[in-house]
């Protein structure tokens, strides 16, 4: 427009030779200024026809994505490399162009790849340019790189979330500590009277006449009740106590063997065959050995209980290096294991009846048990979960795919 006016004025007012020189200079000057503003701004700017054909793109936009002007000018804007990585964005842009062509201002957040194929966040807008009559003649697309700001926002958000989480954990751990203190106090106080009841019942049982069946049965019932009460108290004490650990580098195989020794009787009673597949030269695991033995004891004991008619109990220990991201594995801050990190893995496998699918999600809930009638407290796996969490370790309990039965996978940090 401006160029046309200058031409016209110059034509009227100036002699021919001056006119020619001046007009060229003025044009060049004007062109330089416009071009400089257009090209040197950090913003990405371009110009589209109302049907979305790209007719101008500034240097910032072209250089950012390593694109040659000749390869994009004259093309539909949505088919240029700024947009082709996402069909969703392409669609959004096409719709935006339609709206802007009707005179609307359009803005949305987009992403563009830079020349190194790194994805950037872009604050994108489309402004309609109108002529004197108000008719839209061009569209001006503009983009501003907001990756840095987004990152800061994300970092701030992450930091806030971590703070919240830490606070939550602190409150939780304070609560648990208090619960632990109350529990152990109560539990200890209960144990002495329980012992007296137990001893008293034993004495009475040995003195009543053999033919008094009702009395013996009653005493046996009291004895069972005392046994159950004791079991609950013990579990609660274990749970309360599993809240703090002393970590050292230990051989996990030693812990496994210790747990096995403690279950020797039960294993023999149910005629279970123990298969040990322990790799040699394993790195030391970072564990509190006593607590880890307790966790393994609970897990192996479950496996044994799952095979009352006998079966194979397979124990494995090996090292695994995480090569790709997965659940709790990756380079996010909350991931337990980083990619490239090595873990000591323990597997405990039985060939019992397995776990019903609807139960799998509840296994770690305190007091959840399917063997309540058999005197189970339902605290066993809750204790395991506690111990595993405190070890910053990972546990998975699943039904086996290769056969019936359950496989427990425990992944432990190694001592650095």
């Amino acid at each position, binding site marked *: 427009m401006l160029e046309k006016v200058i031409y016209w004025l110059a034509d009227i007012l100036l002699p021919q030779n001056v006119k020619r020189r001046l007009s060229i200079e003025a044009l060049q000057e004007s062109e330089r200024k416009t071009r400089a503003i257009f090209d040197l701004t950090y913003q990405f700017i371009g110009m589209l026809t109302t049907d979305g054909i790209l007719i101008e793109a500034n240097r910032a936009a072209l250089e950012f994505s390593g694109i040659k002007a000749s390869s994009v000018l004259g093309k539909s804007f949505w088919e240029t490399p700024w947009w082709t990585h996402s069909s969703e964005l392409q669609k959004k842009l096409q719709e935006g162009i339609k709206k802007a062509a009707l005179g609307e201002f359009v803005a949305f957040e987009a992403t563009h790849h830079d020349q190194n194929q790194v994805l950037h966040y872009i604050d994108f807008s489309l402004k309609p340019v109108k002529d004197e009559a108000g008719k839209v003649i061009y569209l001006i697309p503009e983009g501003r790189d907001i990756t840095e700001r987004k990152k800061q926002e994300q970092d701030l958000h992450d930091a806030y979330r971590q703070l919240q989480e830490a606070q939550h954990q602190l409150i939780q751990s304070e609560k648990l500590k208090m619960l632990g203190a109350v529990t152990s106090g109560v*539990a*200890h106080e209960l*144990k*002495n009277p*329980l*012992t*007296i*009841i*137990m*001893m*008293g019942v*034993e*004495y009475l049982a*040995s003195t009543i006449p053999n033919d008094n069946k009702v009395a013996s049965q009653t005493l046996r019932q009291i004895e069972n009740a*005392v046994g159950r009460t*004791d079991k609950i*108290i*013990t579990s609660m*004490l*274990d749970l309360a106590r599993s809240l703090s650990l002393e970590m050292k580098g230990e051989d996990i195989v030693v812990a496994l063997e*210790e747990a096995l020794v*403690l279950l020797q009787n039960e294993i023999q009673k149910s005629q279970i065959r123990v298969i040990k597949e322990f790799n040699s030269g394993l790195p030391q695991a970072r564990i509190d050995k*006593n607590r880890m*033995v*307790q966790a393994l*004891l609970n897990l192996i004991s479950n496996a044994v209980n799952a095979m009352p008619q006998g079966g194979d109990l397979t124990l494995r220990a090996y090292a695994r290096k995480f090569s790709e991201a997965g659940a709790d594995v990756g380079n996010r801050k909350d991931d337990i294991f980083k990619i490239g990190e090595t873990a000591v893995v323990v597997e405990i496998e039985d060939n019992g009846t397995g776990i019903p699918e609807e139960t799998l999600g509840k296994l770690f809930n305190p007091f959840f048990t399917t063997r309540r009638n058999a005197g189970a407290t339902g605290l066993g796996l809750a204790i395991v979960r506690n111990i595993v969490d405190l070890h910053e370790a990972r546990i998975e309990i699943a039904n086996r795919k290769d056969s019936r039965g359950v496989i427990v996978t425990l992944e432990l940090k190694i001592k650095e």
Partner: protein
Amino acid sequence: MPKKKILVIDDEEDFVQLIKLNLEKTGDYEVMTETKGVEAVNRALEFKPDLIFLDIMMPDLDGTIVMDDIKANKELEDIPVVFLTAIATKTDQFSSKGGTIGGQQILAKPVTTKELVECIKVNVPF
């Protein structure tokens, strides 16, 4: 075979009485009881037990101090002492090799006569 002599030190009067009743009923043991921690060493010196069951949480004197006093006494140092306590749980008892904590034998309350007898048999074989 002469009866084995067992000394039970615990501040709960009812408890020590019942232990005495149950152990003596087996016919294999002679049991003396003491409810005061401070009297423990004297009682042991006069009774010369084959084994001592010792509570830890006693109001007048902590069982661990009683233990030190017993072990420091030349006449008593070889007598096996087993902590009989509510502080430890069965998990501690079983998850420690041979039912010991730091080399010290423990029995977690509540105990049965059977457990007591087994423990005596292990510690006093003849």
